[in-house]
């Protein structure tokens, strides 16, 4: 890639008010998470809500703060399907983790 091409692709992305809105949304979702912890909701509901909110927060950070929303689709398609596939593969051990407490001799 030529140096001229490299210099010409600096992205400005969204405007400042959008970044501020994203920041406020991230703070708001963090507040909801802390509230859930304070209310001590049942573990499974809490885990689902926390993971859901974390994924939304991560998507907002990647899309706006890391500018991926303003990049070419090819960059996203090269990086993220593989990452998501590998992370989902890690779930393969979840069954073992759930089963182990019931396999203890004096459980």
């Amino acid at each position, binding site marked *: 890639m030529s140096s001229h091409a*490299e210099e010409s*692709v600096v992205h400005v992305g969204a405007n400042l008010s959008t970044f*501020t809105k994203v920041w406020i949304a991230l703070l708001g979702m*963090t507040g909801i998470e802390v509230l859930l912890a304070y209310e001590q909701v049942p573990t499974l509901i809490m885990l689902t809500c926390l*993971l859901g909110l974390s994924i939304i927060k991560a998507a907002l950070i990647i899309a706006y703060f*890391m500018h991926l929303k303003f990049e070419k689709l090819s*960059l996203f398609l090269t990086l993220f399907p*593989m990452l998501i596939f590998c*992370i989902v593969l890690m779930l393969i051990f979840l069954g073992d983790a759930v089963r182990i407490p019931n396999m203890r001799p004096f459980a």
Partner: protein
Amino acid sequence: MSSHASAVSPAGSVWEGGQSPYATNSKKFGMWLFLISDSLTFSAMLFAYTYSRVTNPDWPKPFDFSPAIIFSTIMTFCLLSSSLTMVLAVHSMNHGDRKATVRWILATMVGGGAFVVLHLSEWMKLINVEHVTALNNPWGVPLFGGTFFALTGLHMTHVICGLIYLTIIAQGIARGKFKAEDVEVSGLYWHFVDLVWMFIFPLVYLMSARVG
């Protein structure tokens, strides 16, 4: 595929990757590749923490809502705000304002520094008051200390490396050295550190909160 035809094409052959298939510079693409591999490392550690927790019904809840959860919420606020100031640094640099860029990077470093100080005080409390180490703790679940310190320690190392990185970038910008793309690449790293904390905070701290 005709190599002769592709050499003539002004845009470059698609089959040879084109001139710029991702329309991005090589530094930024390199950083993206690093961040993707790093996210797999953090994912593996988060899964290890979660599986250890699921396999141990006696998993401890060592974080009192006040002050531990309030402390970690302030840490989250510091990191999120430092991400906003980093975005503003990139924005200023894209508009050619080097002085404002240095100021925003310094603000980002203040947020990151506050995070590290609060995190270390949290660690000190766990080690000195609760007597938790990487190999032992009073609740008889040694995996808690091992996974907790490994995960949060790796994250804190990333934050400290980010602070060093930003110091170098800020110095370079002040001396008129670096370009906008360098600030953008350092911003990518900083946002990643913030992104990882968005999973550590709920899974490690909030899921182990003790109220009352």
